[in-house]
């Protein structure tokens, strides 16, 4: 499994919806798939499963809003 697939898997688990694996430009906040609580869960999972530490204050909803955007941001932080 490549990096992108792994990230999408984590997002799908947290959102409890596989749609994010198909629609990579879906705004997960606007679609109501994720809230601030789930966001924290996402950050914890990134740390545990991918070993990437994303500070809460780094997670800006405007730039971390779609699966593609999240993959890009994580690539920058890797």
């Amino acid at each position: 499994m490549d990096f992108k697939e792994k990230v999408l898997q984590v997002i799908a688990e947290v959102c409890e919806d596989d749609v994010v694996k198909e629609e990579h430009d879906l705004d997960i906040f606007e679609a109501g798939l994720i809230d601030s609580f789930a966001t924290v869960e996402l950050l914890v999972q990134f740390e545990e499963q991918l070993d990437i530490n994303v500070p809460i204050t780094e997670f800006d909803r405007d730039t971390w809003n779609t699966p593609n955007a999240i993959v890009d941001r994580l690539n920058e932080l890797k």
Partner: protein
Amino acid sequence: MTPYSSFLFFIILGILLLPTMILGVMGKRLRYYNVFVTIVVLAIIFSGGNEGFFSLVVFTILQVVLVKGYITYRQAKNSSLVFYIISFLSIMPLILSKILPILAVDNWASFLGISYLTFRAVQIIIETRDGLIKEQLSIFQLVNFMLFYPTISSGPIDRFRRFQKDEEKRWTPEEYKDLLYKGINKIFIGFLYKFIIGYSINTYFIANLDYIADGKFTNNLLYMYSYSLYLFFDFAGYTAFAVGVSYIMGIRSPENFNKPFISRNIKDFWNRWHMSLSFWFRDYVFMRFVFLMKKKKWIQNKMLVSNLGYILLFLLMGVWHGLAIQYIVYGAYHALMMAGFNIFETWNKKHKRWPTGRVMTVVSIVITFHVVCFGFYLFSGKPFQ
């Protein structure tokens, strides 16, 4: 002089900002002239004697020392204890300003805008802890951010890194014209909201309620709705002034309101009402609390963690308004509503009992509107008189 409260203030501001606009339209840098404007306006605001000028000076020095000291420390080490101590010292003046009035002593710690300025400072400390602010900041950068006069008295609460990007930016004439247009537009919306609609509701309706309503129940009911509307138009009007003037200064301060009365549920409401404050609490209190609980695995139950987070957030938000019974009850009320909605939402996700569709959306908006108005009724203090 209280900002945006009199026409004299607007006239002075208009004259002072004229060179800013000319420089902006010519595509020149705004920074140096804006510093001059800031000093003059701060002098006008704080020269009345009741605004706590000396407390403001001491407060600013304290925050600069704490922030600069912590950044230097953080470049070498990262102990949680030091972070908590520095954060506590940073909010100490705010705590004092809330406690002193209860002890019935002179409130020497307080000054106009302390509640908002504290959040600007603490936020820098938290982002330094998270490693997002690594380089030492200059005294100019810190003071310029903390004492940015358009938003000094009641926000909106900006974020340092966002503010800094705008502050360092050299706007092209086209970009600045767009900002100027938006800024002036906002200021006129402010006039409409605060001085026409808000003023009218308060003067012609709320002040005459005793003649309009006959029974005690009707009186309180009408007060609840009219006060809620007044609160919105007054505060949204103030915010439009603050944001509009920021735009003219070349800083895109965040918005505070996004049609709060069409919220579909209480969670939605807190994404639309006093946003810069609720987002501050969301990012720096709620999410950090949840993160800590999850990482340390102290509490496993999801529902319990999020509800405890809401209780913490809204009780803090209540006390932040002041240590009075109405604010504490207001905070507790919203904590209860959020936790209740959280349980309902999770249950409904599984059972899908709440029908969807246009009619139900309207029903949800109406229910939320009433829940929210009752909250403002508590907030107003009228039930506790």
